[in-house]
């Protein structure tokens, strides 16, 4: 039983990681607490829904994944545009203004989604080939979740490679350390910001698109997802990709086990951990005062 729950936790962790990784990258570079990340996730889900409705993949897995990818790319484009049109104007502003402007984006996107897709709950059929369960070690492993987990691992490895070995990755990490200094070496920060926000938006869109056939989508997905993503990002150390992986897995597993042992505390539990991590941070390191 515990094993099954841990496996479940790992699978949920993969989903949480997909959502939180983009958020943590964006925060790392821009220091913007991007509430609109949940909105991009929601857009990914709705765009994927429309694509799948319009061009039903039926038995074709490549078509299905192509549609997921297209949805994620469209969200990346939208995210990039939001950066260029809105966020770029406020990098010099204080954190509170940046935060509030992303809340403004949340409100606008939510009403746009209501206008375009309506308020009804929408469900998208799962591709036939992935709707079943794989049986191994006497346990059921849902094929779709296993696929999402594999994608999560793939995305993680891809991000690590991107950050380590490409110039964009090095600039991103440098900007995470000290973005002002990057500009003082002649790099146009705006390009890094646009790049990172686009990448982060792509990840949000991908997570949303992958959620589409797995569950129900409606115009409330943004709020549903964003607080959980924040928790993971905070526990993971804000801006730290490796920490985010660990935190996503930890939160997934704790949630899965928590419902067995402390069912009524599940909500509080995660926030207690988040608070504890923050307080420990203030006691442990000076890192909080940067």
């Amino acid at each position, binding site marked *: 039983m515990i094993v099954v729950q841990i496996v479940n936790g790992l699978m949920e962790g993969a989903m949480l990681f997909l959502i939180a990784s983009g958020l943590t990258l964006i925060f790392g570079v821009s220091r913007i607490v991007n509430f609109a990340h949940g909105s991009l996730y929601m857009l990914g889900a709705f765009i994927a829904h429309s694509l799948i409705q319009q061009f039903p993949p039926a038995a074709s897995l490549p078509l299905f994944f192509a549609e997921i990818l297209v949805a994620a790319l469209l969200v990346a484009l939208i995210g990039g545009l939001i950066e260029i049109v809105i966020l770029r104007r406020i990098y010099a502003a204080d954190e509170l203004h940046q935060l509030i402007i992303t809340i403004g984006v949340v409100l606008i996107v939510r009403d746009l989604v209501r206008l375009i897709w309506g308020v009804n709950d929408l469900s998208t*059929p799962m591709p036939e080939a992935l709707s079943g369960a794989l049986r191994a070690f006497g346990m059921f492993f849902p094929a779709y*979740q296993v696929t999402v987990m594999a994608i999560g691992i793939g995305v993680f490895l891809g991000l690590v490679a991107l950050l380590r070995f490409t110039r964009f990755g090095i600039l991103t990490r440098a900007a995470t350390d000290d973005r002002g200094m990057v500009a003082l070496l002649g790099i146009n920060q705006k390009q890094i910001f646009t790049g990172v926000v686009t990448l982060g938006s792509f990840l949000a869109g991908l997570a949303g698109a992958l959620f589409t056939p797995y*569950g129900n989508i*409606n115009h409330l997905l943004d709020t549903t*997802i964003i607080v959980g993503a924040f928790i993971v990002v905070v526990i993971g150390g804000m801006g730290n990709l490796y920490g985010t992986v660990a935190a996503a897995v930890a939160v997934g597993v704790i*949630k899965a086990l928590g419902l067995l042992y402390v069912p*009524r505390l599940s909500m509080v539990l995660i926030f207690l951990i988040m608070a504890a991590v923050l307080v420990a941070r203030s006691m442990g390191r000076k890192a909080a005062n940067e």
Partner: protein
Amino acid sequence: MHARILTGLLMGAALALSGTAHAQSAAPVKLGVVADISGVCGPLTKSGLNGLKLAVDETNAAGGWLGRKIDTITRDSKTQPPEGAKVTQELLSVEKVDMITGPCSSAVLLSVSATAKEYGKLLWSTIGSTQRASIELGHPSFFQAQANALMEAYAAAEYAAKQPGWKKIVTIGLDYEWGHMTVEKFTERLKQRRPDVQVVKNLWPKLGETNFSSFVTAALAEKPDVVLSVTFGAATVNLVKQAKSYGFFEQTKLFTFLPVDTAIALSGDMPEGVHGFARAPFYALKGTGVKEFVEKYRKANNGEWPDDWAVLAYDAFGQVSAAVKAAKSIDTPKVMEALAANTYKGMRGDIKMRKIDGNDIAPTYVGVIGRVKDYPFPVLTNVTIIEGAQVMPSEDEVTKMRAAAAAKK
């Protein structure tokens, strides 16, 4: 300097707000609609508003109530109880509405109800169904047009008691009032009927949960005969879809709240054989005017099928309409009197309000999901209608519950 701006703004605010209090004209009846348009209740509310609009338009076309047109004034409660109280207060004090309907969430319903009570204006509910509104916090101007949550829990238990194979049950209830109350009352009633039944585990996903896989596996681990899921809308869709991928439906059965909108949302993903209860699935209704209503509704709403919320909004308005006619007045006490005195022949058959708790003696519909050629979505088949009278707490019980609630203070 700040001061001047401040006073200016306050004055401006006062003017803007008082400006809306336009003069009263005796002609139209004003119906305030406090609707949970944004928030979790959005989808249900939208259908409810469609159903209400159809009913109001028809009534107006036929000359309105007692020769007076009906004006609806709609406000969004944002599914927040304090906002619900605020807009209700505004509707009653500024717009001076004559009656109110609309809320969906239990909490908003209770806050709207408290304010409506103060003004003694009729409030009728067609979505929100917490029994606290009709029993513990009931008052003479509250009318509940459907089986309340308590009755529904009992109805589900009555149905479960008749399934000989259901001996071991796991419950999954959303972690809020409706979830907890329904699980508790279902269990209580079922144990009375069937002492051999065991509820082996209660699971409580939080409201807004999107990942149910851990709950599915935790439920399956108990090897239950059936899983009762007290969820609605998005949560039910998520649960069913995610349960499928664990081979849930090969291992056990699901019994859940299944109004038409949820069945439509699930469509192709809905496995056959799911047991469901609902408040007014149009295809199972035996009363008058169902077919005509469905046609009219679909024509007015781009071919959308009416769900339970649309039916209830329409049917309840009809019931109030009939009462107004019978009472020849829109005064709350008189309308309430008429609601309790007259039997209304609506889509759900003959229906009547009980005076003590203002609750319709209304049925609950329980059946098994199947597919029929008439509809492009899964429907409940072999529907058992659990009559309201069978599951309603008796008047004595209502009195006792009210006393207990007062004593608990």
